């Protein structure tokens, strides 16, 4: 456990030194600028748009971090040969993989938390500046705690994307890993369409392939509850629980396969 923690803390430190937290500044500027502009253009709907925008930005910024750092987690260590020094210490390859993963998840957790806080600050400002008559027409309270449910599922989705990026990074080049992870992210969001692919194609082979992909690929649309939350629709806690369990099962499977591949690799 100690080795995993030590490796994870170093991944976090690397992301800080690589100036990853700068994305938070961009996030805050984007949100403040949009809220100001949207406030000038719309009446009453602006809080809904800001909520949409804030959740989408959290998701996209997190995705960039998960993919672009995730694909380098292993390959960078191998490329710069720092892995030679590290693996000669009392660290197993399984601990190395788990530590690397945990470090990036920690980075994401800090980023997503700070983004969520910035998001709530903007919403608080809107609640404070909008007159009560306009606030009364909102579908959900301005500083709706339910937004945290959407943020939480975004985080679980990012954990899954990180595991995918790490998995590809154990055997592939960074560019290929990025392409494949992004491809899987897109396919994962259209996973439900793959199930009934035979309705739109005549080829049986293509339909079977799509059905196979449907069973293997994670259904990432399950993690997207932005619309429900923004419109004040309920998102039951049971749904959060099962979706999280679903995501973590994929994460565990991906980490196992990554460890299996990585444990057999030669570092020439």
């Amino acid at each position, binding site marked *: 456990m100690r080795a995993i923690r030590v490796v994870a803390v170093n991944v976090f430190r690397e992301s800080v030194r690589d100036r990853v937290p700068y994305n938070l500044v961009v996030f805050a500027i984007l949100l403040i600028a949009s809220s100001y502009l949207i406030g000038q253009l719309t009446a009453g709907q602006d809080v809904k748009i800001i909520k949409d925008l804030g959740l989408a930005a959290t998701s996209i910024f997190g995705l960039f971090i998960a993919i672009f750092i995730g694909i380098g987690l292993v390959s960078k260590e191998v490329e710069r040969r720092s892995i030679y020094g590290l693996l*000669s210490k009392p660290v197993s390859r399984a601990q190395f993989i788990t530590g690397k993963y945990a470090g990036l998840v920690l980075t994401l957790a800090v980023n997503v938390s700070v983004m969520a806080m910035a998001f709530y600050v903007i919403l608080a400002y809107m609640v404070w500046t909008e007159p009560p008559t306009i606030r009364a027409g909102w579908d959900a309270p301005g500083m709706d705690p339910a937004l945290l449910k959407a943020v939480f599922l975004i985080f679980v989705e990012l954990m899954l994307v990180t595991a995918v990026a790490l998995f590809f990074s154990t055997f592939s080049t960074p560019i290929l890993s990025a392409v494949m992870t992004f491809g899987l992210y897109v396919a994962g969001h259209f996973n439900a369409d793959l199930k009934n692919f035979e309705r739109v194609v005549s080829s049986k082979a293509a339909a079977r392939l799509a059905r196979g992909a449907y069973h293997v690929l994670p259904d990432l649309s399950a993690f997207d509850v932005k619309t429900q939350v923004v419109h004040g629709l309920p998102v039951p806690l049971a749904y959060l629980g099962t979706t999280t369990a679903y995501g973590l099962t994929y994460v565990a499977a991906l980490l196992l396969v990554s460890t299996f591949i990585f444990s*057999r690799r030669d570092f020439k």
Partner: protein
Amino acid sequence: MPSAIRIEELTKDYTIGFWRRRSYRALDRLTLEIEPGEVFGFLGPNGAGKTTTLKLLMQLIYPTSGRAEILGRPVGDLDVRRRIGYLPENPSFYDYLTAEELLGYFGDLFGYSGSDRRKRVSTLLDRVGIGAERRLQLRKFSKGMIQRVGIAQALLNDPEVVFLDEPMSGLDPLGRRDVRSLILELRDQGRTVFFSSHILADAEALCRRVAVVAGGRLAASGTLSDILAFEVHGWELVISAVSPELLVKVTPRVRRATEISPGRYSLELSLDQSPDRLLADLTAAGAALVSLNPIRDTLEDFFMKRVAEMGAGARSPREEESRARH
């Protein structure tokens, strides 16, 4: 008492080529045994299989066949890794960390914490000559300084066995002297040092026993004197105050005469010529003896001969098997 390192028939094949894949044997049935407390030189030219052997011992790569043990346990055992240190060839670390942070990070992995870790890190950085630069990020370090940090991290856990892959690489003469004295200090503390080098003077200065690899195969192993003793094949006389007339007289009696500086010559004699009589004649004619040495094969000569005998590179496994059958 188990051997510090035991290597048995260790073999490593790599697959090369993309379309036409073929096997390349980087290390061929290497067998070695290193005793505890020994400074052992693992010598060979570039591409001989030295780094491959060290990577196999660190389990950075897996053997095709054969086995290896460190301190009586299979390589890769996490308990063994607590008791060994390793300096990779041309080491490279996390350039966003300072030297102090890097050693602190590795110290954490060994379970050191608090003041113990800080003290170890500080003592070792002092020992390898990293001063105030220890608080600079490693990206600002020169190659020689990185090598020093690499040596420090290899000694962080007071290892019983230290593996150093080309430890003198990238160091200036002062740095080489420091590393030599550090290795001797480790020997005096009873630690086992296994170091690879293609710089033969280092081995001659530090080791009692060496192994020489060439083309992925063990070319020789034993004490340096055993390996080189039978290779004496002449004498070298360095003489000063030699007049041109005297030189003309002695030239037919020597294998080669080379002028070092005006009046000073190096004279080479074959092994069957006694240097005593020539020396007596030279001194009688007014010349003065500077030095008299046997001409031996250097390890470079040894390498060159062995490499020529064994082929410059390793062969394919099929060739190796066919060679073994005959």
